């Protein structure tokens, strides 16, 4: 595979998201972990851009970094005791190592040609072609039309709103229980 600018960008964003993810679980300071989570999410946003899904990339930054990560930071600050804990080791590393290896093996089987012989059918993507070039990109307008026509997803669209309202009400009920 030759090195194009896209593959260079892909490399950078992959390193950001994977390295960030690794740092999230290895860093001892929870605040630093949360910041690394943001870095990881930013890398993912970059990957969305490379997949020509700019709307998703912007949403990733706006919602995940701008709102959810802030919420996580607030949650960390809320739980005072966690900030003071220095040792968070436990003795389950053998079990988690086995689980991680199993998941990794399954991923290897499904996403690479290795698994094609085992399952006797082609599950993996064809790496010879460049799939990004043949895909019809979905524009934001098409998403909007799908949201608000009966042929599309108008019912799920409204249910999303209902769900969010329920989440809001639930959060208020839980948070204010002690004062009521």
């Amino acid at each position, binding site marked *: 595979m030759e090195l194009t600018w896209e593959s260079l960008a892909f490399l950078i964003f992959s390193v950001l998201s994977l390295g960030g993810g690794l740092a999230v679980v290895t860093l001892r300071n929870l605040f630093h972990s949360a910041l690394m989570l943001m870095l990881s999410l930013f890398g993912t946003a970059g990957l969305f851009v490379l997949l020509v899904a700019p709307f998703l990339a912007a949403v990733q930054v706006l919602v995940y970094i701008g709102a959810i990560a802030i919420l996580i930071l607030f949650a960390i600050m809320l739980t005072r005791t966690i900030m003071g804990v220095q040792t968070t080791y436990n003795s389950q590393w053998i079990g988690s190592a086995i689980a991680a290896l199993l998941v990794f093996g399954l991923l290897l089987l499904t996403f690479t040609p290795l698994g094609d012989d085992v399952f006797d059918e082609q599950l993996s993507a064809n790496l010879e072609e460049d799939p990004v070039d043949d895909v019809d990109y979905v524009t934001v307008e098409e998403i909007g039309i799908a949201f608000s026509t*009966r042929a599309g997803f108008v019912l799920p669209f409204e249910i999303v709103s209902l769900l969010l309202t329920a989440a809001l009400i639930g959060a208020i009920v839980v948070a204010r229980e002690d004062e009521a």
Partner: protein
Amino acid sequence: MELNQWAFVGALLSIAWLLPVAPIVLNILLAPRRKGEIKSDVYECGVETVGDTWGQIKLQYYLYAIMFLVFDVEMVFLFPWAVAYNALGMGAFLAGAVFILLLIEGLIYAWRKGALEWQ
């Protein structure tokens, strides 16, 4: 085409962070550095600091963040709706109106429960 446009954003963001770094590095190189016991004290109005800084925050902030998150996700759904609005009929208005009014219901609930009061 689309990717080519984003290449500019990539170029901008990859050099944008250098612009503030350069003066700060210059500052570190040029400015004097003298350590002092009192100088490196935390400035809390001249009084010596007591206790741990990274203590507990009020639940209030968390509530605001949750409300913001809910509104934020709602608006993410409304952007495609707004973009496609000209291409659609009255049904699209109704779909959007129901969506927004459900959100308003949540806001009214928060208001009535006093979750919007700053304490």
